[in-house]
């Protein structure tokens, strides 16, 4: 385990020494829980409509596909007119676009970022690399199937998909959300052990808590 995650004695600015145990103090140990739907179908539909019309994307580009998101932010394709925008922190985002190949090193950061996002949250796999490895099918350090490690709501095929394909993907994601089928976060909570086992199988130096948010 990394040195900064080990238990240590810290001296505060007021001169009082206290013990810090980062794994317990800096992270929440509670596993994720399933969020039940609203008490009534019509209310849940209203919520889903609101969620689908404000897709906020985490500004985290994991692979070369991130380059396709830049034209979407700017006037040429202007995704903002569909209620899609990019946010700088996982706390404000509800959609994580895994943009292209995901190396095991980035997967670790992607998992952390995903777990820090608030419910309800969605994952879109962008490009063939997230589906079956794409051109990195025989690479020693990229994962081949994203849905083994994070719950994926939608895939957008292509290598690379054009910005138009992404816009179509966002429209399809809206339909999925409105139909109440974008239950990725609940799926993650329900099959938490399975996802963790898969993640730990490829990340050999696991040095973070099982769930961190």
């Amino acid at each position, binding site marked *: 385990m990394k040195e900064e995650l080990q238990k240590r004695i810290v001296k505060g600015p007021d001169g009082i020494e206290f013990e810090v145990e980062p794994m317990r103090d800096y992270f929440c140990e509670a596993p994720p829980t399933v969020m039940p739907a609203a008490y009534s179908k019509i209310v849940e539909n209203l919520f889903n409509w609101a969620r689908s019309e404000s897709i906020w994307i985490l500004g985290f580009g994991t692979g070369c596909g991130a380059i396709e998101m830049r034209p979407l932010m700017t006037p040429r394709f202007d995704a903002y007119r569909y209620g899609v925008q990019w946010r700088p922190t996982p706390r404000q985002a509800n959609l994580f676009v895994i943009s292209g190949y995901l190396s095991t090193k980035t997967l670790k950061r992607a998992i952390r970022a995903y777990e820090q996002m608030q419910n309800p949250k969605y994952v879109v796999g962008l490009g063939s690399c997230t589906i079956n490895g794409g051109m990195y099918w*025989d690479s020693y*350090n*990229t994962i081949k*199937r994203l849905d083994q490690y994070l719950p994926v709501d939608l895939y957008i095929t292509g290598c690379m998909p054009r910005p138009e394909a992404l816009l179509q993907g966002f429209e399809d994601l809206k339909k999925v959300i409105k139909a109440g089928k974008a239950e990725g976060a609940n799926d993650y909570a329900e099959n938490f052990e399975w996802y963790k086992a898969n993640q730990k199988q490829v990340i*050999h130096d696991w040095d973070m808590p099982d769930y961190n948010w």
Partner: protein
Amino acid sequence: MLELYNQLKQRFELGELTEQRSDIAFITTDRKQLRSLLLHLRDKEGFTHLVLLTAVDWIEDNIFQLTYLLNNRAEAKDIGLRVMLDRDNASMESIHDIWPTAATYQRELREMFGIDFPDSPGVNDDFILEGWNDIPPYRRDFDTLKYAEESFAQRPGRKTHDPAQYMKQQLYPEKD
């Protein structure tokens, strides 16, 4: 380049000269001479910039080839020095005191090829890989396909076409 080679040859024992273009050439040398040769090229001949330091795995001959590529900005010339190392327990003297940037290259070579550079700062730190548990991946005896199949879950149904054959069938189906 031949002129420079002949000049250098008066001072150092050099191997063969490979002239790729009029402005880029490679010289094979042995590891004992490398340091003095690098210093001479940097201080006397104007090759002040280390472009890259990289390795080639000649597994059939059981050697690693290190290439030190230097650039002379004023004359727009490049010269590459090739050093052959024994592949077993490969180890080389560090040149981080001549060019500090070499430390990064040496760290990469340590991780990806397993070539050790004792005394190079931070050479044993993780560079790109995290938690790597196999032989260094750039070595040619590392089977990347086998590793990928064993380590990662695969989605069934993936097909690979030979690009030439596939395009021929798509474009000229009647010829078959």
